[in-house]
C-alpha cells in the first residue's frame, strides 16, 4: 500500500513537471490587478494519498468526532454510526491505540464540565468496547470546557464544542 501511494505521488510530481515544461517562457506583460482570493475550493484530498491505518485515515475516512446534545452524554444514532466505523477500523488495525477526548460547550461550570466531559468520553469508550474493541486500547480524557473549537456564543457553535474526538495515540501507520 505504501509503495502504491508513493507511486501515485511520484506520478503527480511528474505530471506537474511535465506541465511546467509545456508552459511558455515568461514575457513582460503589464501587471494584472491581483486576482481575488480563490473561493475556498473544497480541499480535494485524494483518498489514496492518506495512509490507511494512519491518524489521518481515522480522521478523514472514518470520522473522529461525535457530537452530543446539551448537558448529555447519550450517544445518538449518528454518533453510534461513527463509533461503529471507528470500531471496525480499530479491528482492522489492531496495533492502534486511541484516546477519546471529551469536550463540553462553555455553558456549564468548570468542574461540572470536567465531569461531563469524562462521562462523554467514557460513553464512547464503552460503546467501542461493546463492539469488540479491547478496553486496553481506548484511553479517555476530559477537557471539560477548556478546548472550545468555536468562539461565538450561539447554539451552532455550542453544538460543535459538545464533542468527543478520537485520536490515535500509538500504532498508527505513518506516511
Amino acid at each position: 500500500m505504501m509503495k502504491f501511494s508513493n507511486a501515485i505521488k511520484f506520478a503527480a510530481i511528474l505530471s506537474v513537471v511535465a506541465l511546467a515544461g509545456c508552459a511558455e517562457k515568461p514575457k513582460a506583460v503589464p501587471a494584472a490587478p491581483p486576482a481575488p482570493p480563490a473561493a475556498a475550493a473544497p480541499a480535494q484530498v485524494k483518498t489514496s494519498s492518506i495512509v490507511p491505518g494512519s491518524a489521518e485515515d481515522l480522521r478523514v475516512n472514518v470520522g473522529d468526532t461525535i457530537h452530543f446534545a446539551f448537558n448529555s452524554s447519550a450517544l445518538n444514532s449518528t454518533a453510534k454510526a461513527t463509533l461503529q466505523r471507528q470500531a471496525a477500523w480499530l479491528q482492522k488495525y489492531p496495533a492502534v491505540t486511541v484516546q477519546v477526548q471529551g469536550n463540553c460547550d462553555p455553558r456549564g461550570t468548570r468542574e461540572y464540565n470536567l465531569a461531563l466531559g469524562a462521562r462523554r468520553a467514557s460513553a464512547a469508550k464503552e460503546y467501542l468496547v461493546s463492539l469488540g474493541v479491547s478496553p486496553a486500547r481506548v484511553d479517555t480524557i476530559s477537557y471539560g470546557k477548556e478546548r472550545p473549537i468555536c468562539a461565538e456564543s450561539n447554539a451552532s457553535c455550542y453544538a460543535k464544542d459538545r464533542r468527543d474526538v478520537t485520536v490515535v495515540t500509538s500504532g498508527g501507520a505513518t506516511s
Partner: protein
Amino acid sequence: MRNWCLGVLAAFAMLVGTIMPAAAQLHVDVTQGNVQPLPIAIPDFVAATAGDETPAVNIAAVVRADLGRSGLFRPLSRKSFIQKITNINVPPQFSNWQVIKAQALVTGEAAMQPDGRLRVDFRLWDVYGGSQMLGLQYFTTPENWRRVAHMISDAIYKRITGEEGYFNTRIVFISESGPPTHRIKRLAVMDEDGANPVFLTNGSYLVLTPRFNPTAQMIAYMSYISGKPRVYLFDLETGHQQMLGNFPNMTFAPRFSPDGNKVIMSLEKHGNSEIYVMDLRTRAVTQLTDNPSINTSPCYSPDGKQITFESDRGGSQQIYVMNADGSNQHRISFFSGRAGTPVWSPRGDLIAFTKIEPGSFRIAVMHPDGSGERVITDGWQDEDPTWAPNGQVLMFTRSYPNGRADEIWSVDVTGRNEQRVNTPGPASDPAWSPLIQ
C-alpha cells in the same frame, strides 16, 4: 516569591498611647452595603526625615485605594484638605476636617530606622467626636511597605466596622492569554489589590481551579502537566509541585479542609465522578459519595464538620450538604435551573454558588439549609465564587460572550459594590487566601 511572608513576620504592631480618651461613635455596618460610604480623609503620611517621602506617600495611597475599594469608605480628595499634617503626635485641628465633611481622619508617619527597617505609625481619628480611635506602630523591611499599608487598612476597617479586614491577603488564580480557541493558562498569585503578581507555571500545560491551604503556603490545583488531568500541590515556599496521590483516572475539584490536613476532591472512574478525601499525613483515601451521577465541587464548612457539593443525582445539577464522613447527604437547592460550585462562607452562615438559568450564570448566596437565596451579581456568565476571609466579600470569574477575555470581579455580600479586580491581563478561577499573619 518564596519568602514573601517572612518579611511580614518581622512586621509587628504595637498600640501607640492614645492622646485622648476614645469615644467610639463612628461605626459602619457592613451588612448594609455601600448605601452611604463613610467619608474619610487620608493625607499623605509624614516623612520623618528627607528620604522617607516615598513610603510615606505610597502607603497612604494604598490605604486610600483599599478602603475605597471596599465600598464602605469614601476617601476624600486631597485637594480639599485645609490642614497639612506635619506632626502626628499632636491632635489635628478637627474643625478643619469637619469643614470638608470628613468623619474619620487617618494620619501617619514613615521613618527609616538606623538598622535598615522601616517604622510606620498611624492614628485613626473620629473627626466629630474629636478623639483618637486607634494608634498603631509597625516595623518592617522597607520592601514590605505594601503589606504594612494593607495591615493599616485592615486595622481601620476592623476598628470602624467591627469586622476583620481582608486587605492583607493574596489571591491565587489562573492567568489567561491567547485567542479563545487556544487559551494559554498559567497558575499565578498576587496581592488582593493585584500588586506583586507572580506566575508559577509557564503556560505549556493546562492548569485549573487553584485553592489555598489555611496558611496560604500551599496551593491545590488541577494540572495536565503529565498529559493526564490530576490534582497537584504547589508549595510556595519551595516552588515544588507534586501530584497528589497516584490515581488511575482524573482527579479534580480539590479543596483543603479548614485544618489544612486533608484535601477533598473528585475522582473519576468509568465516566462517573465521586467525592473522596485524602489525609495528607497518612495519604489514606476515603470515598464519601457513591452514586451513578456527577458528584463534584466539594467544600468544607468552616468547622470541618460538613461538606457542601454539587450533584446531578436528582436529574439536574444542584447543591447538596453532607456530614464530613459522607453521611446524611441531602439536597438543599431546588431551582428550576441548575446550581453549582458551592463554597461555604468562612463565617459559616452562607453558601455562595453559581446559579444557572437559561441565558445567565450569576453568583448567589443562601443559608446552609437552602433558605434565604439571594442573587448578588448580574453578568452574562459569572461563576466560581470565593470568599474573603471575613465572609463579607466574594470574588468570582466573569466571562463574556463571543470569546472576550475572562475577568475576575469582586462583590460584597449585599450585591451593591461590584468591582473588577486588578489582574495582570485576563484571569479566571480566583481563590482568596486567609488573612496573612
